[in-house]
Every structure is written in structure tokens, then in C-alpha cells.
């Protein structure tokens, strides 16, 4: 239960093709994260899967059944929206019960399910409150509660944490991960957040302008980005991409090295540069460096005593050097 397969799915809004033909298989029980720049079609893709938008061509199969023409309610999927989309006029209990009521379940059964879901989500004490009386994290949990009672074959999340503040985001991230470990239901999760993508996903799908750039586990993407786009997109701070003569030395069009894979010294090394900004976080120091190879960012663990204007030397860790051809693709 919970395998979703997209076959040559396309989507146009009027004249503009938002999703060019796209194939994707999401396995049962997987936690799949969609990432990509704003406007690349993440939400659209999710909504196509949910059935909230018609696909222009292609087919969507859920558990092997063609679901292309099936209405959103019938696909057996549950969605958690960015704004949570709780029903503000209903209590938490009614919110969670709503899908069951729509399914015509009898009151006793509904009650049992709601109680169960509430206890899983630590909402038991809030069942009679309205969404307006809840904190952000609690609302988030109600939205999830509403999704889980339906026992969907897959959950769809569209940037569910983006409205929360940083501290809460960390907590909720952990909670969702735990939920996935408990339920083992397929989850499709859209986010902008690097950390969320890296920490939660079994599989990350990187999208650009509706195209899939790469699919793989977080560490796969971190270690072996398929092209410069993925290389630049995954990882924070961004990978330094260097082209020109330095890249040519390695026989490729572009080389990439992550900020954490560069050793910095004040005395000597491979590349020389001048610090433009030094960001001291205590735990780390980020140096933004102007060098002959262009603007670069490097990370130094702990505290390093450099300031704006200092000259430093950088030495890349060759084992972590990434090489890309003229077409942007990784060369082995």
C-alpha cells in the first residue's frame, strides 16, 4: 500500500508548461522529499498527485491502479497543507473527525479513532479547543491528525513547517520523522529547507523547472551530485563551483568543492584569497573569500582569528573534489 507511479505526466497552465513529461516512482513506505528553487513546480506536482489539479497528459498510478481520473477524495491520500488548512470553526476533535464523518463512519468508530490519533499526537488535552486557541506546533499536529485518521496509503506534505519559528521547526521535524518510523506509510514532503531535506528524506527528488534533476538518498546527493545544479543546491553553505583554468587542470569544465572540505591556513596552501567577510558563529567560522578563482566560501570548525581584509590560503581536500563536464554533468 502506498506505491505511487507517475508516467509521462505533464502539466500546463494555459500556455506555460509547468511540468514537462516526468516519470517518477515512489516506493511503498518511502519518505520522499521534493526540493527545488521557488516556482520549480514542487507544489504543482504534489497537487497533481493529490488530484487537486488535472494532469494535462500522462497517467498516475497508485498501488498499481490508474488513478488519473479519480477524484482527490478517492485516491486514498492525505495532504497536510502549508497553512495547515484547519477548519477554524470546528474543535480539534471535529477537525480530526471530519474526514471520517465525510466517509460516513459511525460516531462510535469515529470517536475511537480520534482518541487514538490524539493520544499518538499528544493532543488529548486540546480536543475541545478551536484551532485559533492552539500554538503553531499544535496546529501542525492537528493537521497531521486529520491526515492519519484516514489511514491513507500516502501522506503529502507541502512545506508544513515553513510557518513555524526556528526552534519549533526543529521539534516538529523530529516528530514527523518519528511518525514516519511508527506508521511506515509513504510520505511525500515538499520543502525549501536544506536541513529538513537532508535529515528527513529516504529519497530526495531535486526539481528544476518541472524536470527531475536527480533522485537519490541525501548522502548520495551530497556526495555525488549528478550535475552542477544539484551540487549547488544541496548542502549549506553552497558548494564552491570553479571553472576556467583551475578546472582545466583537472581536465573538466567545472570543479566543485564544499566549504567544509577546504583547509584554511594563514601561511600557505593551494589557493590564495582575501577575506571579505568573516562570520564567527563560535562553533564555526564562515569565511567569504575573494580569490582569483572567484568568490568562495569556506568553513572552519571552531573559532579562527581572521578578519575582513586578511589574506589566507585555502587547500581543497582532493578526495572530496567534484568534477563536472561542459554539459554540467558529473564526470566520474
Amino acid at each position, binding site marked *: 500500500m502506498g506505491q505511487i507511479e507517475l508516467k509521462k505526466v505533464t502539466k500546463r497552465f494555459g500556455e506555460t508548461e509547468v511540468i514537462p513529461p516526468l516519470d517518477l516512482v515512489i516506493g511503498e513506505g518511502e519518505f520522499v522529499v521534493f526540493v527545488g528553487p521557488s516556482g520549480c513546480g514542487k507544489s504543482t506536482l504534489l497537487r497533481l498527485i493529490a488530484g487537486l489539479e488535472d494532469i494535462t497528459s500522462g497517467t498516475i498510478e497508485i498501488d498499481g491502479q490508474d488513478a488519473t481520473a479519480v477524484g482527490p477524495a478517492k485516491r486514498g491520500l492525505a*495532504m497536510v497543507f502549508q*497553512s495547515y488548512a484547519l477548519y477554524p470553526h470546528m474543535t480539534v476533535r471535529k477537525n480530526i473527525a*471530519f474526514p471520517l464523518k465525510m466517509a460516513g463512519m459511525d460516531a462510535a468508530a469515529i470517536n475511537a479513532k480520534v482518541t487514538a490519533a490524539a493520544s499518538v499526537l499528544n493532543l488529548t488535552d486540546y480536543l475541545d479547543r478551536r484551532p485559533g486557541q492552539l500554538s503553531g506546533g499544535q496546529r501542525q499536529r492537528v493537521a497531521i491528525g486529520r491526515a492519519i485518521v484516514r489511514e491513507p496509503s500516502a501522506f503529502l506534505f507541502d512545506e508544513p513547517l515553513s510557518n513555524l519559528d526556528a526552534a519549533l521547526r526543529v521539534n516538529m521535524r523530529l516528530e514527523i520523522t518519528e511518525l514516519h518510523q511508527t506508521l511506515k506509510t509513504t510520505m511525500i514532503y515538499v520543502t525549501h529547507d536544506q536541513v529538513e531535506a537532508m535529515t528527513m528524506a529516504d529519497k530526495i527528488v531535486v526539481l528544476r523547472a518541472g524536470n527531475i534533476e536527480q533522485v537519490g538518498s541525501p548522502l548520495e546527493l551530497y556526495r555525488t551530485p549528478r550535475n552542477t545544479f544539484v551540487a549547488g543546491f544541496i548542502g549549506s553553505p553552497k558548494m564552491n563551483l570553479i571553472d576556467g583554468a583551475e578546472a582545466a587542470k583537472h581536465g573538466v569544465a567545472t570543479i566543485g568543492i564544499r566549504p567544509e572540505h577546504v583547509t584554511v591556513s594563514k601561511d600557505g596552501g593551494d589557493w590564495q584569497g582575501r577575506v571579505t567577510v568573516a562570520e564567527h558563529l563560535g562553533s564555526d567560522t564562515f569565511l567569504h573569500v575573494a580569490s582569483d578563482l572567484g568568490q568562495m566560501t569556506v568553513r572552519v570548525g571552531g573559532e579562527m582569528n581572521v578578519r575582513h581584509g586578511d589574506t589566507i590560503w585555502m587547500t581543497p581536500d582532493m578526495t572530496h573534489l567534484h568534477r563536472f563536464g561542459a554539459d554540467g554533468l558529473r564526470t566520474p
Partner: protein
Amino acid sequence: MARSITARRKTINTAIAWSIGLLIFFPILWTILTSFKSEADAIAFPPKFLFFDWTLENYAVVQERSDYTRYLWNSIIIAGLSTLIGVIIAIPAAWSMAFVPSRHTKDILLWMLSTKMLPAVGVLYPMYLIFIKLGLLDTRTGLVMVLMLINLPIIVWMLYTYFKEIPGEILEAARMDGASLPKEIIYVLTPMAVPGIASTLLLNFILAWNEAFWTLNLTAAKAAPLTAFIASYSSPEGLFYAKLSAASTMAIAPILIMGWFSQKQLVRGLTFGAVK
């Protein structure tokens, strides 16, 4: 902006605002006061403000002359039902406009409003003939229909601006949760829009209550509302200010009281999306 304003400033503001408020309210206040005067006091010079012989005689005379309660009841039924039916028809239309907008949505909305600009007198005769044909003259049904149609554009517009503020995601959530379209509207949209619907009901109730052209021309006895009641006082023999005032007070009192109680709702709804 939130700097302390002196008590003096606040006093001055209060004084000016109260003066203007009272000035605006004065005609109504004066009408109410006059309704308790004798005819002689009503036109006395210098005018008597509070110190006159208060009397209820005018109300007694007015009540004796015409059956106020029947007019009142007709007004309530006609204004209430026309608004209610209007809202019931308008909710689906406003839903469509707000949540499934098309290129023509705005055109349709503006077209609807433009139907309100037709001069009513120009079509009185045709309407009268149609009403005769349909046997609707002097029936509440007929008036409810007409007033509903007159106010429908405003109702649609108000609901549309309200609905637009409701995030579409909630309706989508309902759809994902398995709600059919009618259920989505009944269980999710309508309850969420209750404040908006309430103020729409209110404003249009007031507009229907005060509508004086069709209500006067399409009724005789049975369905006549308060606008017809006041028409029989509009120029009685002699200028009986006190009786005129009593009748006027009786005609506006119910709506005035209702309006005051629901002021907040009304104001919020009145903005027609002008205020975001």
C-alpha cells in the same frame, strides 16, 4: 504613533467628535422628541427641546389609523426572506467567483452590479404588467422576488469579497477529506464565512427594508410594508409634525435598533473588500 497623547488632546477630540456625532444624529433625535410633543409644541418658537408635556397621544392616533403591526410584519417578512433567498442563491455563485475564477469573473461581477443602475421607474409599467400576468401583485412572494433580485448583485459582491479572504487550501483540504462539493460548502465554507454572511444579511436587510419604490407600487393592502405605512403620512391634512414624527419613528425604530446592535458586523461587511 503610539506616543502618549495628552489628556487635553483626548478631551478636545472627544468634544469635537461628540458634537459632530450629535449633529449628525440630531434630525433623528429631533424626530423622536417631536413625536412625544403636542402638535402645538412641535412647531413652537422658540423650539422646545426637552421641557414640554410628554405625550403618547401621537402614537395612539397613528396606531388607531393604521395597523402598524401588520406593516411591520410585512416589512420583516419581505426584507428577511428576500435577503435570505438572495444569500442562498449568491453563496454558490460567490464560491465560483472566489475559488474558481476565470477570465470573465470580474466582468460578470461588474455586469451584475450594472443591473442595479437601471432606473426603476423606467421599467415600472412592464413590471406591473408582468406581475398582473403572474398574479403577484400585492403578494409578499412577488416583493420578496423583486427585492431579492434588486439586492442580489450587492449580496454576490459582498460574499465574493468575503470568500476571497478564505484560503482556498481549506476547501481543498475538505475535498481531500472526502467532502463533496455541497458538503464542502455547507460544512466548511459557510460556517467559516459566518461573519461575512451575517453582515451581508444585515446590510441587505436594511436595504430591502428601506426600499420604497417597488414596495409601494407593487402592493396594496395585504403585502404592504412600512414604506407604504409612511406614505400615508407623507402629506396629511395640515402639517401635523408630531404625528408625522410618531409615524416616522415607528417606521425607522426597528431597523435603527437592529442596526445599532449589529453595528460591528455591519461595518466589517460594508467594506466590500475595500479594506484589506
